[in-house]
């Protein structure tokens, strides 16, 4: 499967971008929480005015002064979640379902990954060194047959990694790759950022500097932008970049408090029966009984009976970008409890992974099928064309087709076009141009992967080629893929000549295209929030444009007509759209009793499961908006958004941490401290809370208490580099530099790509006049972050020192 994972900053598994401090005040580092776009913050000042905001008090005041109804609590989920022990593995299915098992075994899902002993390794483990600018990678076979990587990095000890698991088999037509995983001492199974691509036959890695996938070449440095040091782990975990639960079967990655380690469980890194069908234990128990023929339920649902959206969700649990609401999803669990599939759309326009017409902008999976007319005006699901067991192709009636390019996928419904194919295609019969998918499902390079290596996926919005329009949004039209010698103008004229007027875009798409951020709030609401639409992806995009572009907390004078448009959306049947609308209304006018009570009533009328799903989403939309306010320096609005989020789900620790950070940015340290104490009451074993608590304490010169907090975090999870780093900061600040050096060294040992760790290590060495080690440390830091001003100053100082003294 296409594996790469260019997650936007706002998705659950986000890149962390650090703001670095340039003065020489002690630094603290806050680690991030999964559901927020928390950028790790280095606190900038110790002193500042601080105010005190008391939440409980302000809430009480609300209660006293009005007839406002309280928000209902989040209903407890009565459904027992699926457990890892409920799964039996594919082999348990093979005795009864041997025909299907055999088909699956050779399918792409069946060969999607696994132990290197079981799957075909396509990477060249040939012992030939591949050179980075600052490192040399040698993939090789060990004497015992193990697949190994040797990595020699300038200034660092030589490292070797054994390939413990493999993901991918180079199966995908538009660019197949293979990725290798290795166990790390903290119990995680981490992706090694050295991938192999089938067609180009090269080792490559991902950069996030805009080039996407780049082969390993001597001009590339190996740094965190190349996902070095390996940090992406298998399984969904809140604090780490991760592969969620998709690149394998029944993946479970948890931090075990008692073992102080991660526990990673999975059945296989292939995609097995239970990935789609759910846990099979009960099924095996039932069919082992002699009376199974009399049982109405066999412990598994027949997927063929699922309705359109139900069927799609079976695939979307992996084949879609999604925001994590709760970790721990396993097949058989209710997808909507764990993921919000349309939430990756949230944010500003350039952050939407889909263009207004639904096509992939950057990187995405196939959720944009929901933008296709085949979905909106038809019944198309994944299994309309894809055989779920062998990933072969079939027509709407389930008849097997010869290839992925077979017209039967389309013409079993669009029979009218098959009567005289050339009259429609204007290309010679049996030519590539005459194939339906050549024009309507072209393979488009995902731009996030850059242009060096091919990662093209067929366009599941099933569009009509519109050369001029396509060019205008930066997409290569289907026409130009073959006729690259022709201008866009020529191709558009040809389309005009052949087809005249073509089918207009969906009204919602037209609206998104028409929208211009310079519009007034009222105009924007008219364009983006139509009274009726049949395009949920577009409606989500419109709502997001409007909410992120125009809304902020408590807009007293907002145009009533615009508010009414949002009000209509709080009745939307889609759980994502509805929750964003409710959160928006809550954000802008909750102080209006009527609106407040409307929201309360709406929630109260929902069935418990729906209410819980809505509230989870609602409470996670507001922090995403808060992050945007923070990006614009507006911490007060951010705090207000966090506060409202906690009104809906009061015990969300991630939101509390973010809120504390925002208070801290305003130097409202007491408020920050208070909210963190509240978090500790909810969960005293969350190391992130303790880290942040330590930061506030250190900042307010409560140094000893800060050290206690950091050590508490460190004792809960000894695998977090920033804990060591922050303890180092304590010793540095309290002038115990030798001790600081010990802790900074541990920090970079655990996170070898922590530039700040090296820089502060260098500074500490300078203090103890160990200039040689200082020089090595600062070079490592600058290798990772060449632009760091303080680091460059240290380097310059050291160089002039060596020049003078040598």
């Amino acid at each position, binding site marked *: 499967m296409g594996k790469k994972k260019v997650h936007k900053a706002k998705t659950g598994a986000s890149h962390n971008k650090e703001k670095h401090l340039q003065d020489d005040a002690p630094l603290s580092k806050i680690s991030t929480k999964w559901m927020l776009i928390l950028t790790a913050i280095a606190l900038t000042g110790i002193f500042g005015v601080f105010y005190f905001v008391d939440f409980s008090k302000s809430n009480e005041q609300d209660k006293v002064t009005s007839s406002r109804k309280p928000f209902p609590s989040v209903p407890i989920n009565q459904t027992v979640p699926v457990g890892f022990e409920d799964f039996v593995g594919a082999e348990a299915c093979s005795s009864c379902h041997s025909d299907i098992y055999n088909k699956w075994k050779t399918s792409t899902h069946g060969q999607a990954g696994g132990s290197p002993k079981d799957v075909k390794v396509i990477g060249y483990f040939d012992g030939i060194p591949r050179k980075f600018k600052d490192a040399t990678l040698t993939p090789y076979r060990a004497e015992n047959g193990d697949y190994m990587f040797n990595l020699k990095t300038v200034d660092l000890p030589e490292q070797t990694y054994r390939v413990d698991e493999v993901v991918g088999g180079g199966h995908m037509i538009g660019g197949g790759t293979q990725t290798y995983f290795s166990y790390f001492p903290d119990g995680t199974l981490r992706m090694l950022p050295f991938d192999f691509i089938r067609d180009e036959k090269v080792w490559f890695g991902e950069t996030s500097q805009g080039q996407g996938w780049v082969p390993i070449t001597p001009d590339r440095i190996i740094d965190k932008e190349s996902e070095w040091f390996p940090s992406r782990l298998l399984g969904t975990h809140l604090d780490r970049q991760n592969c969620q639960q998709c690149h394998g079967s029944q993946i479970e990655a948890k931090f075990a408090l008692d073992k102080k380690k991660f526990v990673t469980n999975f059945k296989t890194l292939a995609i097995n029966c239970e990935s789609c069908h759910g846990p099979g234990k009960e099924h095996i128990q039932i069919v082992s009984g002699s009376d*199974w*023929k*009399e*049982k*109405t*339920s*066999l412990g598994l649902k*027949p997927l*063929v*009976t699922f*309705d359109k959206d139900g069927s799609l969700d079976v695939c979307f649990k992996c084949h879609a970008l999604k925001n994590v609401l709760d970790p721990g999803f396993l097949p058989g669990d209710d997808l909507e409890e764990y993921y919000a599939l349309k939430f990756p759309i949230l944010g500003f326009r350039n952050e939407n992974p889909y263009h207004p017409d639904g096509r992939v902008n950057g990187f995405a999976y196939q959720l944009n099928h929901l933008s296709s007319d085949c979905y*909106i*005006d*038809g*019944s*198309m699901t994944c299994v309309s064309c894809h055989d779920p067991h062998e990933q072969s192709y079939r027509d*709407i*009636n*389930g*008849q097997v087709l010869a290839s992925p390019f077979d017209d039967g996928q389309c013409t*079993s*419904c*669009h*029979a*009218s*076009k098959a*009567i*005289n194919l050339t*009259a*429609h295609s204007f290309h010679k019969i049996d030519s590539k141009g005459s194939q339906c998918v050549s024009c309507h499902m072209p393979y488009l390079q995902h731009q996030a992967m850059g242009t060096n290596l091919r990662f093209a996926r067929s366009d599941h919005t099933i569009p009509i080629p519109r050369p001029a329009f396509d060019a205008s949004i930066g997409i290569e039209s289907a026409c130009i893929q073959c006729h690259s010698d022709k201008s866009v103008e020529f191709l558009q004229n040809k389309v005009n000549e*052949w*087809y*005249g*007027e*073509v*089918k*207009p875009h969906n009204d919602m798409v037209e609206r998104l295209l028409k929208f211009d951020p310079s519009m007034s709030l009222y105009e924007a609401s008219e364009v983006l929030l139509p009274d009726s639409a049949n395009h949920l992806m577009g409606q989500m995009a419109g709502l997001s444009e409007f909410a992120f572009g125009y809304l902020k907390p408590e807009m007293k004078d907002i145009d009533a007509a615009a508010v009414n448009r949002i009000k209509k959306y709080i009745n939307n049947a889609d759980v994502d759209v509805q929750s964003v609308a409710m959160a928006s209304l809550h954000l802008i006018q909750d102080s209006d009793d009527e609106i407040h009570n409307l929201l309360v009533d709406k929630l109260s009328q929902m069935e418990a499961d729906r209410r819980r799903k809505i509230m989870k989403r609602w409470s996670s939309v507001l922090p995403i908006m808060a992050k945007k306010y923070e990006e614009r320096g507006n911490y007060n609005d951010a705090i207000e958004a966090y506060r409202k989020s906690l009104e809906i789900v009061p015990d969300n620790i991630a939101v509390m941490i973010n809120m504390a950070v925002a208070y801290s940015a305003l130097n409202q340290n007491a408020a920050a401290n208070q909210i963190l104490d509240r978090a500790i009451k909810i969960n005293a074993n969350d190391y992130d809370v303790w880290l942040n608590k330590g930061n506030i304490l250190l900042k307010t010169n409560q140094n000893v208490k800060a050290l206690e907090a950091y050590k508490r975090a460190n004792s809960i999870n000894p695998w977090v580099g920033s804990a060591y780093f922050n303890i180092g900061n304590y010793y540095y600040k309290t002038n115990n530099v030798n001790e600081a050096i010990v802790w900074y060294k541990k920090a970079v040992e655990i996170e070898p790509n922590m530039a700040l760790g090296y820089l502060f290590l260098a500074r500490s060495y300078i203090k103890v006049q160990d200039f040689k080690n200082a020089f090595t440390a600062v070079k490592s830091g600058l290798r990772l972050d060449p632009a760091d001003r303080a680091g460059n100053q240290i380097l310059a100082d050291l160089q002039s020192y060596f020049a003078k003294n040598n």
Partner: protein
Amino acid sequence: MCKLSYKAFFITSIIVLQWACTGGRNDSRVGTPITPYKALISAAESPKDYIDQLGCLNCHGGATLPSELKAKAPDLSGAGNRYKPEYIFNYLMNPTKVRNHIGLSRMPNFGFDEREALALTSYLSSKRYAPNVQFPDFSKNGNVKLGETEFIEQACATCHVANGHGNNVISDLSNMGSKLNLEWMKQFIAAPAVFQNRSLMPGLLYHFSTDSTALIPSVENAEERIENLSAYLLSLESPDHDEQLDRYETIKKSNPEILVGLGQKIYQAQNCAGCHQSNSDGEWKETVAPNLMTIKSRINKAWLVEYMKKPHAVRPFGFYPGSGSRMPNFNLTETEIDNIVRFIYNEDNNEKQTHIEAPSRFVSNKIKILLDEKLPCLGCHSFEGRGGKVAPDLSNLSKRLNSDYLASVVTNPAVAMPGTIMPKISMPEKMRNQLIAYLLYNKDSVVESKYLSLVDHPITFPSAGLNSESIYISKCAICHGEKGNANGFNAAYLATLPTRHADSSYMAKRPDDTLFDGVFAGGEILNKSHLMPPWGNALSNDEIRGLVTYMRSLCNCRPPSWSTDNKTMK
């Protein structure tokens, strides 16, 4: 226009009339009725005799000519002159045996409700055909007492019985006063032959002039004797006549909307012309019901025996969907049923069928959901009290159908049932086999389906034509309505209202290609009802294109402009 053309039959040598169609007007008659009918009816001996006498093949096909029966059942050309409407009404509701000389045959019970019977009565009462014969002026009132003597002493009592007198060879005239109109009765006694082709009743009092247009008395006082006889017979009223009249009048008054036209449709729908002669009822249809010759390979014998004892609605609104035809109840005796079964199964108990294993509960459940949510079957078939009323109920089919036959119907309906409108539904083989097993074995609920009201549902006669309109009428109109108003008889039984092809504002948004695709691949692919089946296996591309054009004529609209440039179907 000439609708009737019965040739004279020289089967039993007594042919009286030759009706010919002469430009829509008068019939000419030749011959003189003298000789009585041969032997009345010989006893049925072979199974074939039973079939013939009961007239099964008049509807079930296989007969090359209308049977004997047709000559003996009452000619209804002038039913309005002949019968009192309250009699027709009550008789239709509850037919009883009247005639003893028509062998095993009888008027069966069609299960008409009051409104249906009223409609048919209105129609029959409107039938006022009068033979082109100069009758004497029967305007005097006869003497009942003299009439009674006449009845007893003259030939009447030889064949008829009335009030305890005479022999019930032909029929009992005891309640004549409640049945017939006086004027007609007089004319009939004078010249029975002109009212009924091959009538057994001799014209004893009059004979025809040589040009066959005038009646010449054969006896003295012929006119007076007829007046007296008629007066006597008309005086014989059934004890519940007033009650019957009341009932009829009440129904009539409370259903003023029921018109003659509907009655005529019901007359045609029930193939009345299969047994009754008439001058203006449309053509007799050779097959309005399953062909008996093929039943052996399709229907299980035990089921058929039960069915004949008490027929119920297998197809609730016509063997040809929409035609409203019914299998009436003949109140068959065990001997009759036994003989019919022998005829159908040809003494051959060949009921060999492939054993199909019963599905597990789980599979049954799965198929049930598929029937409810994915497959088009329940658009036409009813099942457990829901679904369409076009085709047979799907419950427990192993009782009714041969398993091999069922499998072949599901697999390829056009081969298994030539002439059916059921389209072949493509699906994976495994699913089809599970569906077949489920249909054979599901026993959860067998709801006996009833015939649909012929008054409340539009009757649509299928057309044998091959043009687009005919295809639309026979395949689409049952749901979409003849004029595309979504009011076909089956529309009321669908959860989703069928598309209104007459809705120009909606249809103007649909490209022709979309209409084509929807017909070809079914409603579900357009995000519409899965109950609209795919017709791609049953209709040719040209036929579907024709339907698209026809739908455009129903909406009188054009497709969206963007869909019409260059790229529409060529």
